[in-house]
């Protein structure tokens, strides 16, 4: 402290004690300031680090909240859809128009069963309703299982309706790819091919019957060729007869399964952990 006394103080010995006290106060004030600044710096540092951390947490939480909001909205939509689908399906099961195009009802579907199907809350047993009510048209039109034999049987039945199936040469399963169509489709293909040899008008009639079926048989390709017909003596009759080989695509749609899925939400969407990339 003595080193820091001013020349004036040195000259004036009377104020020496007072001056020392003042210098001591000045030192203390400077020290206090330093301490205060240090403490505040620590606070600032903590605030900065904590702020960045909290900001990240808040941003991440906001992302999670937004996703969960979407999930909740989705659930609400599903719930209201289920309610309206239930009502519509209940109505459809009573539909006379659907009934009019449906195949004959199974004899297992007794009046008692039919009466027990519907209730105020909709259809009690949809699976049974799909067999006994007008709803049976829907699985007939688009089955929910892969069953090639049933598909070929349907095709066979359709061809039999035309000219008693007289022109059928062959019916068999086939490999076909998935069709590209406008609109969303969640169906899988079942391939079928058949060969008909008949009068052109009968072949056309057969095609028409297949096309009018409530079950979709979409033509993929067809080959139509002229074939000669012969009488008993082996002479050409000159009658127009054609052979058609058609490749068809029928469909089935797997039944819908409700399952919960998890979704990974990343704080940083570009991070390797999130994208699954391995570090080089």
């Amino acid at each position, binding site marked *: 402290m003595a080193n820091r006394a001013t020349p004036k103080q040195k000259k004036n010995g009377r104020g020496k004690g007072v001056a020392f006290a003042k210098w001591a106060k000045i030192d203390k004030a400077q020290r206090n300031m330093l301490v205060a600044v240090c403490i505040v710096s620590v606070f600032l540092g903590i605030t900065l680090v904590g702020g960045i951390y909290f900001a990240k947490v808040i941003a991440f939480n906001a992302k999670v909240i937004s996703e969960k909001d979407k999930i909740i909205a989705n659930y609400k939509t599903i719930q209201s859809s289920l309610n309206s689908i239930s009502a519509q399906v209940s109505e459809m099961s009573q539909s006379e128009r659907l009934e009019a*195009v449906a195949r004959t009802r199974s004899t297992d579907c007794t009046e008692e069963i039919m009466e027990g199907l519907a209730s105020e809350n909709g259809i009690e047993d949809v699976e049974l309703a799909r067999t006994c009510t007008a709803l049976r048209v829907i699985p007939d039109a688009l089955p929910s299982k892969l069953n090639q034999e049933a598909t070929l049987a349907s095709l066979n039945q359709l061809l039999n309706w035309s000219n008693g199936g007289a022109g059928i040469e062959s019916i068999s399963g086939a490999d076909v790819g998935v069709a590209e169509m406008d609109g969303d489709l969640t169906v899988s293909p079942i391939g079928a091919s058949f060969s008909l040899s008949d009068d052109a008008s009968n072949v056309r009639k057969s095609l028409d019957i297949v096309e009018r079926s409530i079950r979709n048989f979409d033509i993929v390709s067809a080959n139509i060729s002229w074939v000669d017909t012969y009488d008993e003596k082996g002479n050409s009759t000159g009658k127009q007869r054609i052979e058609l080989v058609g490749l068809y695509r029928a469909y089935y749609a797997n039944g819908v399964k409700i399952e919960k899925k998890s979704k990974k939400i990343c704080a940083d969407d570009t991070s390797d952990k999130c994208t699954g990339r391995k570090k080089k």
Partner: protein
Amino acid sequence: MYEISLVPDVKAELLRKLRMRNLVYLICVVVVAACAGIFVILFGVTGGQGIKLAAQDTEIACRSDGTLKSGNCGSQYGTAVMKFKNAEELLTIQDQMKNLATLNNNKIKISRVFGILDVILPVGENHVWISELNVDIDNNTLSFDASAMASNGIGFRALEAFKKNVERSYYDYGNYMRYDKDTDEYVEIPSYCIDETMDKNGIVYGIYHKGAKGCEAPMVEKKTASGETTTEEDENSGDAELSVDGEDAEPETTETTVAKEDIKIRRTYLSESDMEHYRNGNDDLTKEAGIKGYYFESNCLKYTDGKLDEAATLEACPLLSDAPNIGDSSYGKNADGRLALSFSAALPMNREVFLSSNKHIRVIGPSRQNVTDSYIQIRDMFDEAPKEDIGE
């Protein structure tokens, strides 16, 4: 003049330092307060988010499973999805209906190929026969091997006639409409209620089987004790997706008796005013002259200055989407010793012609026309493949 400071230097320095210290303290307090404030806000936001997340978890659990570890869900969340009776079956039905709608919109009617061939293959003095036809629906291509006979002995005339025919052919489709008194509007007549026919003059008519199932009458007929056929209201409207040929059926609204009657509706109009004439019920054939009647609403036919414009129609709905690809044409003697032309052709077709959702397709060529869906008796258009000994 002198100024004497009575305050000693050290005192002045002390005062300055004390002021500075106070200022630093003030700044420190403000900074610390700000930091604390920021922390409180961040804690508050994080805490709020935590509460929100917990509430969301509760709602998700209640809406999905309907159960909570901590207790029961309130009724405000409705029936949980996993607890909804028959949920999977109902969603399967919904999915099937959606798929069926898409499939029906993209359904192809290959049987129309016979009607198309009837129009594009020349007849008469330039007769063309097909020996083998390949239909590739994925690529919308008709490819075939054909032979031709020209009565004037110039075989390539037949090929030329064929080429002109296909290039100048167009199609038309649309709906037959009827005036509905109840709604005061024109409504579509379902295609299964219509059979089309063409008279000697090439005028196309649709025969509307009024009163048949689904044709202003319900799909299910009910007989009364007296034997009369009556219809009753069908309240179910959600079933419109499916009918005999996959098109929408019209909802019935009133209990009524519909007399069965075949009504002839003219389809071919030479001008717009001609169409208006029939639309307004002035067609004698409707037997209901004077009231609004029946007409055909075309999606392809174009009119210029009120008159049918074939060039514009051809541009709007050409049968081919691109130029025909003709190859391997040769003219020579066949196995019977007669001169014949053989050629192969690949025709890139307009897919619209085959789409089942386009009703009442009519193919119109320079010399022939055809209502493809009603073309049942197929003329001779297939013949034996040309023999190998046809020379160049």
